[in-house]
């Protein structure tokens, strides 16, 4: 321990820059991992905690499909009381708009206030006298006594009154008594705050973005009279829940489903699993690159201290102790880094949540925009990944340190291995790994997740890394002659140095190549995806106007358009045809899918879908009209492994019904499974769930922009609808697409920055290692400028080789991403497309960046003294 504090700690503290950069690298890696964990948790937690808190002590719930449960059936369900207390619930989304702020979604929970107390904890309710609201005194001080039944009655008297979370209300200047306006679908609804929930417990759910209403008021606000979303059952303590669930399932009507609240959570979790796995995989890249820094730092420490290590060995320190010392250094740096990483991860999470929540709520579920709090699990995760991996990274240099002979102290630094042989063995291993990676890519998914795909990607990356020594060697050999003949002597020296340092450089170059290949792969994937989407949009977006409720946040599960709006638009003389689309979410297996109904005739006449199968998709679609048949999205077909002619059993309002698959179409708007049937068929099975959106085809020669204005002004203030013209929707689609992938780029940039820091560190290592050579070069008359140029040329060579290996490996990887991982996780067919301009641009940038990374080592090198140090001799 004393040895550690003398030999390692002092040195670490004496070199704040290097220790700092390393710690920062680890911290950054750990931070990204923690941030992504928090982010993933947040997209679920928004949903999950809402679910848990909202479902309170509910043990079972009865849900309907389609338009929900008719209130009239509730009486028929009276027998449910045999099993416990029963309460109906309705849920919906409100959109709160404040001038100058982005719209915010409020989750509305409508409960039978009087019957609901056994289910949810209302003892946290805090009632405030409206007259005292402006006192400015802290809410806690005003906390009134317990909530009485009488207070709830007040809520019943006024159907527009709500209970709001103080966390949401106070920053927006809302308090008991204040009125506010929200959008529900396209309608504008006025509500009044009756009371605030103290900012603790359930009120923190969804970052406070939810309101409580009495069920009658909620039905009115949501325009869903006579319907509830589910019936919750609280079974008495000590009852066998499985037995009760089975009993209810036997007695319940067709079309209703009994399930545990957690089941909904699991379905959502499954829905998001692939997306989350992708993010997690990306986050570990950042960590990997951080580890590369650890390797570097410890290498530098070992190299620059060879004679010190020799002295220690001469003084009787064992090899094991030397090894332990350097491992301890890595562990110490990693521990500090991980600690900092946890905190940084929390901060980073805000940014990543902001980046991903658009995606998640655009594609999956409405979420809270704030990451959950750090837990002990995250701390354990950070240390459990950071420290052992850092130890692994430090193992090679630590072993090298333990091999230092006591003689090193006396001889004053021994010569480094300078002549490398052709690294045939690692090349062979690389080729075998590449082949293995190729084989892994042919295997199917595991429980819907592309685990073999990821394995293939990792094996391919390892394979590519193994070819790096051979690449370095071959390149240095190949260019040596021409460089010597045609370029300056310092360029030639750089090449000879490179070929001599192959073993030393390989890890660094491989690490850089790996992060570059990730970037290449991801950009090829995104580039291809984007091209595919652009093509798809061009083929399928034919309607002139697209109408959706004003509350709609991209695609979330939302309140429908009001019938009067649909009527008004459909009856306009400018309109040739309208495709009404209605949809509802139903459980399917262990996930949730969207079932929709559209006007097949209108679509076939005016627009089209891009069919994957059968060959004549339009004809198949035409034949599907009036039959129990669906056209399904490609992602549904791939993920559920079904094909044209197959059968799917869907839960409907009247119980499970089999549908034939008439056609499979491409759909890149969502990776959720989507099944569409003709409207008439949909209404028969799911009832009137309201129209979610309209595709409007205008008559010849009508200006869509003008019609749009007309519609908007005709609807006036009473309805808020979103009308996109064809052009603006295309733009919007691409905007969503780009924001979806913003996070990927952010992670890549971090990886690249760390990798460049790594190149800088590696060069520094090499320079320290070759200090004597630099001295000799300076003595025989090499100028500072020539030394500088030599190091920068080396950096550029390293960058170029890394970039070339990265390009090749990245292209291989992009094939795995596009044809394996993407297909298995999202079920999308992406056409391969090479973003040539981007790749050329980024290659040039990369080489420039490595040249830049060479500048600092170059400065260090040129300033190495002109004394023949360590030469024995006199002073």
């Amino acid at each position, binding site marked *: 321990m004393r040895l550690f504090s003398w030999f390692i700690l002092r040195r670490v503290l004496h070199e704040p820059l290097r220790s700092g950069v390393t710690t920062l690298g680890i911290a950054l890696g750990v931070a990204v991992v923690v941030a992504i964990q928090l982010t993933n948790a947040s997209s679920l937690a928004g949903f999950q905690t809402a679910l848990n808190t909202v479902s309170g002590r509910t043990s079972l719930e009865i849900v309907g499909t389609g338009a929900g449960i008719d209130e009239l059936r509730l009486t028929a369900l009276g027998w449910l009381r045999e099993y416990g207390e029963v309460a109906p619930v309705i849920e919906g989304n409100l959109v709160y708009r404040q001038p100058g702020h982005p719209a915010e979604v409020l989750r509305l929970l409508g409960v039978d206030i009087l019957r609901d107390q056994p289910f949810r904890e209302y003892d946290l309710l805090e009632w405030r006298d409206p007259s005292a609201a402006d006192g400015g005194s802290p809410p806690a001080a005003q906390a009134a006594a317990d909530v009485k039944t009488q207070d709830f009655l007040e809520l019943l008297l006024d159907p527009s009154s709500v209970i709001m979370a103080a966390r949401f209300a106070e920053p927006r200047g809302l308090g008991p008594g204040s009125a506010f306006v929200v959008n529900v679908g396209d309608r504008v609804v006025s509500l009044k705050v009756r009371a605030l929930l103290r900012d603790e417990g359930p009120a923190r759910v969804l970052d406070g973005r939810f309101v409580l209403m009495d069920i009658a008021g909620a039905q009115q606000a949501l325009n869903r009279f006579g319907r509830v979303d589910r019936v919750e059952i609280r079974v008495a303590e000590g009852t066998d829940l499985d037995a009760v669930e089975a009993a209810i399932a036997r007695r319940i009507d067709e079309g209703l489903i009994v399930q545990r609240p957690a089941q909904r959570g699991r379905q959502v979790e499954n829905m998001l699993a692939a997306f989350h796995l992708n993010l997690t995989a990306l986050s570990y890249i950042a960590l990997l690159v951080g580890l590369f820094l650890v390797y570097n730092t410890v290498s530098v420490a070992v190299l620059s201290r060879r004679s010190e290590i020799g002295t220690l060995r001469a003084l009787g320190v064992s090899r094991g102790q030397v090894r332990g010392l350097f491992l301890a250094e890595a562990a110490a740096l990693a521990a500090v880094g991980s600690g900092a990483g946890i905190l940084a991860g929390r901060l980073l999470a805000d940014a990543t949540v902001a980046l991903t929540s658009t995606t998640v709520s655009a594609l999956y579920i409405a979420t809270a925009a704030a990451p959950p709090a750090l837990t002990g699990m995250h701390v354990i995760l950070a240390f459990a990944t950071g420290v052992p991996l850092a130890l692994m990274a430090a193992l090679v240099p630590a072993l090298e340190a333990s091999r230092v002979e006591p003689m090193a102290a006396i001889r004053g630094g021994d*010569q*480094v291995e*300078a*002549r490398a042989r052709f690294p045939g063995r690692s090349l062979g291993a690389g080729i075998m790994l590449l082949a293995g990676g190729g084989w892994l890519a042919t295997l199917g998914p595991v429980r819907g997740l592309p685990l073999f795909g990821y394995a293939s990607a990792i094996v391919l990356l390892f394979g590519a890394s193994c070819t790096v020594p051979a690449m370095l060697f071959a390149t240095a050999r190949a260019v040596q002659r021409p460089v*010597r*003949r045609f370029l300056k*002597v310092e360029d*030639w*020296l750089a090449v*000879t*140095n490179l*070929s*001599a340092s192959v073993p030393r450089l390989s890890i660094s170059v491989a690490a850089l190549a790996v992060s570059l290949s990730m970037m290449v792969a991801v950009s090829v994937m995104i580039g291809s995806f984007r091209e595919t989407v652009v093509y798809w949009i061009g083929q399928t977006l034919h309607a002139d106007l697209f109408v959706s409720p004003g509350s709609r946040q991209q695609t979330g599960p939302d309140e429908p358009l009001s019938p009067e709006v649909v009527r008004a638009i459909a009856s306009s003389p400018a309109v040739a045809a309208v495709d009404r689309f209605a949809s509802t979410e139903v459980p399917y297996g262990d996930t949730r899918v969207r079932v929709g109904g559209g006007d097949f005739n209108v679509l076939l006449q005016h627009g089209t879908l891009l069919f994957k199968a059968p060959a004549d998709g339009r004809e198949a679609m035409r034949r599907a009209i009036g039959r129990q048949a669906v056209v399904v999205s490609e992602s549904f077909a791939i993920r559920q492994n079904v094909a044209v002619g197959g059968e799917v059993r869907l839960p409907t309002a009247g119980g499970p019904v089999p549908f034939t698959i008439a056609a499979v179409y491409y759909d890149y708007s969502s990776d959720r499974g989507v099944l569409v049937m003709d409207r008439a068929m949909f209404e028969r099975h799911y009832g009137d769930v309201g129209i979610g959106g309209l595709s409007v085809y205008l008559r010849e020669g009508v200006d869509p922009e003008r019609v749009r204005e007309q519609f908007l002004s005709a609807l006036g203030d009473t309805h808020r609808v979103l009308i996109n013209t064809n052009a603006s929707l295309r733009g919007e689609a691409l905007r969503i697409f780009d924001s979806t992938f913003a996070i990927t780029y952010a992670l890549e940039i971090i990886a690249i920055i760390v990798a460049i820091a790594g190149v800088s560190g590696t060069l520094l290592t090499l320079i320290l290692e070759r200090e*004597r*050579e630099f001295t*000799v*070069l*300076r*003595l*025989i*008359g*090499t*100028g*500072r400028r*020539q030394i500088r140029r030599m190091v920068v040329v080396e950096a550029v060579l390293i960058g170029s080789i890394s970039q070339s290996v990265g390009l090749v490996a990245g292209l291989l990887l992009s094939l795995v991403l596009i044809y394996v991982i993407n297909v298995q996780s999202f079920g999308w067919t992406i056409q391969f497309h090479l973003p040539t301009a981007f790749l050329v641009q980024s290659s040039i940038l990369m080489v420039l960046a490595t040249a830049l990374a060479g500048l600092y080592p170059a400065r260090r090198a040129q300033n190495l003294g*002109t*004394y*023949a140090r*360590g*030469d*024995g*001799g*006199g*002073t």
Partner: protein
Amino acid sequence: MRRPLFSILRSGRSWRPDYNLEDARHFLHGHLAPWHFQHLCCGTLSALTPPFILEATDVSRTYTTGGAEVHAVAGVSLALRRGDFVALVGPSGCGKSTLLHVCGAMDRPSSGAVRLESAVLESADDTELTRIRRERVGFVFQFFNLLPTLTLLENVELPLLLASRRLADAEPAARALLDRVGLGPRLHHYPQQLSGGELQRGALARALVHSPALLVADEPTGNLDTENGQRVLALLADLNQETGVTMLLATHAPDVAAAAHRVVRMRDGRIESESAARAAV
């Protein structure tokens, strides 16, 4: 012959490494018109006929280590003529290496003056010192210090290439010199494949390939066995005779000192005594 000389005159600097003083004198006697001569007298010619090639006057070099001043060299004066073979001897820490560094344009003196041919070293900047080392000084180290990444031939070519000489010129010159030191068959070997004696002979070739005015050697035989040491020493003496290069050696070894024309004995940063060795007589 005419064109290169004009280029030397125009440059106004010390001589290019490929023209030694003998060549220049020959040339001047045979070909120069009187007005040329006059021109040279005011400029570079004064450098052609100095009594000394190296003149160190009252040189001190002081280091500061841990707040304490160390006078490594304290007021030393030393002058070497062309073709001199001088050995610096003395116990460890006597300042002989430091003096060697100062004379070899590796380091500047803290005070005093050092002139190498026409160049004033104490006021030269780093770029200037680098150029002087590249063109006028050759180095031999105790640990040979050939670059491990280059073959023997490439190591010897390097000083010429650094001085922007064409590869086509550098290669024959390096080959010839390596032949001379007996390493003709080992041209394409890497330093790790050579013995200590071979390495030092290679280092000697590297130090002389650019025809320096001064060869500085720090313990050139210190890391060799007796037989190889003797061989290197003999080679040093022979090359001194053949090329007329001035040699300044730092050494512990009495036999090395004995090979020199003159032995300068140092102690505590000062010159203790100076004696003409046997060989000079």
